[in-house]
């Protein structure tokens, strides 16, 4: 996505045999928010949703997103394949009436393959802007050890009172302290929730979207602060006998 992002929420829509049109769930967190981007999680990058459901395994060209603007009532159709694949990202700039918006399965062939699978969409809100380059920024390290299904960030003191503008996940072989870090193949079952002072801002976002170096357009945060002690990572793996370490860099101003 482009622009300055102040929050994002993962939305799950589970498909059922015989049904081709699905209303998007009404979510109060989106009220009054300007959607600037939508991401489609394909089953290769995100095989299961944060709640553990199997992600829709077929091509995204079977799907269409029909979004209703809350002010004008106008409906606009988006090819989900375009959302997923277009090099120049689709522009979104609307406040969406989720109750009148829907996901449409335009090719319902082979229901045995897709029945009871889930389409996972991320709605990003904030303001459209050229990706800003922040002068006099600083870059800090952040290691997170995962040894249970849900862990909270363990921020070092150096992150207190920082104004974060970009959180970057990478896969170095070892962290600066010499611990072995996870590789990219192990990140598909991790989801990140970031909290602000008094509310969740980024909810259940696949960790994949924080690998900024692999994105066509790295994105920036538009937040006064992140409360890392209330922010968490969910891991869907079954065995926690060996801890995993994620390594981030945080750009702050």
């Amino acid at each position, binding site marked *: 996505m482009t622009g300055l992002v102040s929050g994002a929420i993962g939305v799950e829509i589970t498909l059922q045999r015989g049904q081709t049109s699905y209303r998007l769930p009404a979510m109060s967190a989106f009220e009054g928010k300007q959607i600037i981007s939508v991401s489609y999680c394909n089953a290769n990058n995100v095989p299961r949703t944060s709640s553990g459901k199997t992600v829709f395994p077929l091509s995204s060209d079977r799907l269409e997103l029909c979004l209703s603007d809350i002010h004008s009532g106008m409906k606009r159709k988006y090819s989900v394949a375009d959302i997923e694949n277009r090099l120049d990202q689709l522009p979104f700039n609307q406040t969406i009436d989720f109750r009148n918006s829907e996901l449409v399965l335009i090719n319902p062939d082979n229901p045995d393959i897709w029945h009871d699978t889930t389409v996972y969409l991320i709605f990003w809100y904030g303001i459209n802007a050229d990706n800003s380059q*922040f002068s006099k920024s600083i870059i800090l390290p952040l290691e997170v050890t995962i040894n249970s299904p849900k862990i909270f960030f363990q921020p070092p003191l150096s992150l207190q009172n920082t104004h974060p503008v970009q959180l970057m996940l990478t896969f170095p072989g070892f962290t600066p302290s010499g611990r072995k870090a996870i590789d990219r193949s192990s990140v598909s079952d991790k989801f990140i929730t970031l909290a602000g002072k008094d509310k969740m801002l980024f909810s259940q976002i696949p960790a994949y979207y924080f690998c900024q170096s692999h994105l066509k357009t790295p994105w920036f945060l538009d937040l006064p602060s992140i409360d890392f002690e209330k922010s968490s990572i969910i891991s869907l793996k079954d065995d926690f006998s060996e801890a995993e370490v994620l390594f981030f*860099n945080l750009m702050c101003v």
Partner: protein
Amino acid sequence: MPHELQNIACFEITVPTGTNIISLGHVNLNDRLIQSVYLFSSTEDVMLFSPVSGKQVSALAETGPCAIYLNLTDSDNEQFVRDYSSGNFTIYSEMDHFVSWRINRKIDWKQSFLKTIIPDKASTLNLLMYIAFENVASMVLSGNVVAEKTVNLTPDNDIQDFYLDTFFPELTDKTITGINVSNQCNGYFDLHGQNNRLENVPAHFFAIKSSKGFQIAPMKIDLKKTCYLHRSFSRESFSITLSYLP
């Protein structure tokens, strides 16, 4: 918007195995306003030789688990980059998997360093480090008509220098506004401008078509000194396009 390059200095970095601190004290750019620092790595499919030593540039992704972290301290003695993972600032020879950044500070290179962790069973790494900096205000070109000339070249050696005055003689004394290359352009541009120097810049920098790409600042170039340095096993033909003010 591509990142505009006014000047680039190139340094070959040798990274030994084990855990090491590699000082950047040899970087002689203390009074320059630094824009960015990048590492350059080969890939398994596009292996390049160094324009400095002629050695192969290591393919970082193929070396197994290893770690390189950048630490920078500015001229006001603030360590403003701590343990920045090379995964963010390494440009691979055929990909755009990196994060663009702007530093906009003068750096105390004696206090700056790379922290490296390379398993003992791996080989010593040979990488290139590029430091972009500014020295003059950029020329503004809005509304100017720009012309282009493209030449096709075919290398017949692993190491071969193509001086640009041979192929673009009519561009002598013209202001060059852009470089574009085809994908098989496996080498470097060594550019001598009137007030600028872009040292051994990978041609791949100019092949990146996403918003992370690079372009030269408009400048007059001494074409007699400026060359394209082919440094690879490839014998595939490639093209170079120069844009200029007619």
